[in-house]
């Protein structure tokens, strides 16, 4: 009973957050002081074009009405028409989002072993040479901007050694093998970049747990190292790590934008950047809302996952 109540309150809170985000995004996009049409088209744009845009944006209506119309339409799946392509936003973003989802899932598959294995190695013997070495590697990777490391990987694996194509081109007629091959390099890059955060957080929480009383107690029972690690340390370290990973989705989305740009990957991130460049307002608002919704949804999943995984929360009351 208590679990359902907790889960329900998390869901309500998430929906409320999404509502606040929509206010922020709508506010920034249309409610900024000054004339929106001038801001979008630039001061030098012809007055007629500005007037047309004003009508298109519905600027003659009150803000509240505009917001209500926008939300009502969006909830029904109508995200408006793109200024640039004159096509419905959903038709334009939909396929791009699918590509990015495939990329992210593949990246996640790289992320899991790339973060769990090094962190476990580090936590086995904290403050010893191997731990220090991995720490240095993660600090270096973490400190390199995504666009630098992505460019470096592109240079190494697509230009120097031609294992992968330097530009990712996706068509409808590709076989699964070709599709995977095209996705591998950007996905591996993304997975590795994300894993640098994952390794650090998992190491911290592993080391924390390793120092707790119940782990010492497990050792005092004569249990083997492996059992102490797998049954006592990891289950307790994974819960905070799962939540941290969900928060990392924010980095993932940022990383997606950069990696897609570097590999010329036809995904959601590059579509959003293009829209921002052209100030394609309907695509921008839809894109930002989608990014925020994904973030909120993944964190909701992690929260509920933590509720399920943590007996203290699950069996309350």
């Amino acid at each position: 009973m208590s679990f359902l109540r907790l889960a329900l309150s998390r869901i309500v809170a998430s929906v409320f957050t999404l509502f606040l985000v929509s206010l922020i995004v709508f506010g920034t996009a249309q409610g900024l002081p000054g004339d929106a049409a001038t801001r979008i088209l630039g001061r030098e744009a012809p007055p007629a074009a500005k007037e047309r845009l004003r009508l298109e944006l519905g600027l003659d209506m009150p803000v509240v009405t505009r917001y209500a119309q926008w939300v009502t339409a969006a909830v029904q799946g109508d995200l408006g028409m793109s200024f640039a392509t004159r096509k419905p936003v959903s038709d334009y973003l939909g396929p791009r989002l699918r590509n990015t989802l495939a990329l992210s899932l593949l990246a996640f598959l790289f992320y899991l072993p790339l973060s769990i294995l090094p962190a476990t190695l580090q936590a086995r013997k904290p403050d010893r040479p191997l731990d220090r070495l991995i720490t240095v590697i993660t600090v270096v990777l973490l400190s390199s901007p995504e666009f630098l490391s992505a460019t470096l990987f592109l240079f190494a694996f697509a230009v120097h050694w031609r294992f992968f194509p330097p530009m990712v081109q996706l068509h409808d007629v590709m076989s699964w093998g070709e599709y995977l091959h095209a996705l591998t390099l950007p996905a591996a890059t993304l997975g590795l970049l994300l894993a640098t955060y994952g390794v650090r957080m998992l190491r911290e929480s592993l080391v924390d747990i390793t120092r707790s009383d119940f782990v010492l107690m497990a050792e005092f029972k004569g249990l083997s190292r492996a059992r102490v690690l797998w049954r006592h340390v990891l289950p307790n370290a994974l819960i905070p790590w799962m939540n941290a990973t969900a928060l990392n989705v924010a980095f993932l989305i940022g990383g997606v934008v950069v990696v897609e740009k570097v590999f010329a990957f036809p995904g959601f991130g590059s579509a959003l950047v293009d829209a921002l460049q052209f100030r394609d307002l309907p695509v921008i608002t839809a894109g930002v809302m989608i990014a925020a919704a994904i973030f909120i949804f993944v964190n909701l999943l992690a929260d509920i996952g933590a509720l399920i995984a943590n007996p203290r929360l699950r069996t309350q009351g």
Partner: protein
Amino acid sequence: MNTVLEVENLTVSYAVPGGAFTAVDGASLQVGAGEILGLVGESGSGKSTIGHTVMGHLAPGATAGGSVRANGRDVLDLSRAALQDLRGASIGFVPQNPTTALNPAMRVGTQIAEVLRRHTGLDPAAIRARCVELATDVGLPTPAALLARYPHQLSGGQQQRIAIAMALACRPPLIILDEPTTGLDVTVQRQIVELLARLRDGHRIAMLYITHDLPLLASLADRIAVMQHGRIVETGPVGDIVRRPRAAYTRALIAAVPDPDSPAPAPLHESPVLAASGLAVTYPAGFLRRRPPPAVSGVDLTLGATETLALIGESGSGKSTTARAICGLIRRSAGDVTFDGRPLAPALGRRDGADLRDIQYVFQNPDASLNPRRSVAEILARPIEVFHGIRGAAARDRAARALADVELDAEHLGRLPSELSGGQRQRVAIARALLAEPQVILCDEVLSALDVSVQARIIDLFLRLQRERRLALLFISHDLAVVRRLSHRVAVMKDGRLVEIGETDAIFTRPQHPYTESLLAAINRLPGEDRDAPG
């Protein structure tokens, strides 16, 4: 008698910046089969380090010399694999705090079973049967159901029973107990001690019982070793140690233990300065959450102008909540509180400066109640400025005088709390309360974070302060011996209600409520010449 544990000339030292710190300094002790050896000492004496070293565990950066022979082998020389075979099978360990020592994400039954799986060849069905048997052995009701629970679903006493079952699982000849009842309520403590005595007699299990609680040891142990500054100053049978202590430190330790049987201060029969009637505290319902039962309800009590009223009861009985509702830190949901005949508002924000000044609060743990980033002078300056509007040199003079009142030098003014000992910190906290020039001080377990010798000096300080000033004390405590020494009257709380209130000696000799009786029955006494030694 054959020995199951023989520690010889053990030295454990830690590398610290600029040298080494010796935690254990040439300690030797033996535990015979079926014997309970009590290892007693104050905080930092190195007693827990000995316990961990016997388990073959040294803190990072620590080195050990000497020998620790358990089960005929020197644990200091064992390989990791041999140590893993020894732990759990030949030496059991019962930790200080079962709440943190049990894995929160694993059912307690599994935590017992994994010891058996590791060290015995039993099949799963036999392991299950043995777990139930163990749970019954340690006195858990409905063992099968309890074993399927997670640690947080058990009470503190039940958790500690699980930890004991874990230590007993493979019937080891020796168990190390590291402060196993600290933090448990006195009645639960009593039950655990009785359980341990039964296990020793029934299974002939030897125990090394580490604690700071000398009266408790006197009722359980066969022999006692007294530790100070890493050395064992004296070892002997319980009766010898308690009645004819040889070492000066042992004598001081025994002298500091308050006697629960000496008469309390005579009742005063004063008109009350503080009165609460029908006091109740209820916490609000949360989002989608039902309103919890009231934390405190229907509490009536009065406090004379120079009286000490003790508020006793076990954890969760509502003692602290009552005190906090009186001073306004927690809003009361019903009832009246009057001071000197004038009513006090439920909320802190609605009380005026005089209300705030007249009732002061001293917290349990001075580590938490003193801002670690402020010097003693800055800490003491706050009440002087807020309540008396004095700053600068005059304030400093007053702070120095307040320190003298609590028997500290003015040189302590420049120190940070971390540069003081625990007892000194609590004195600073008391000085801060005195600086307000209050009429009432609410003392919330102010002694429980302190060593027994420090406790004795703080008790004397309170007695002197009360003699010298007109001061009423509401003294929350779980230590009944201290209560008898200090208080004129006693109020007993259980489950948020006051079950009994009366003059101290009357309560101690003729308790009316069965709960009070059980509290009194749980008191541990030192055997003396004039008293009967128990057991």
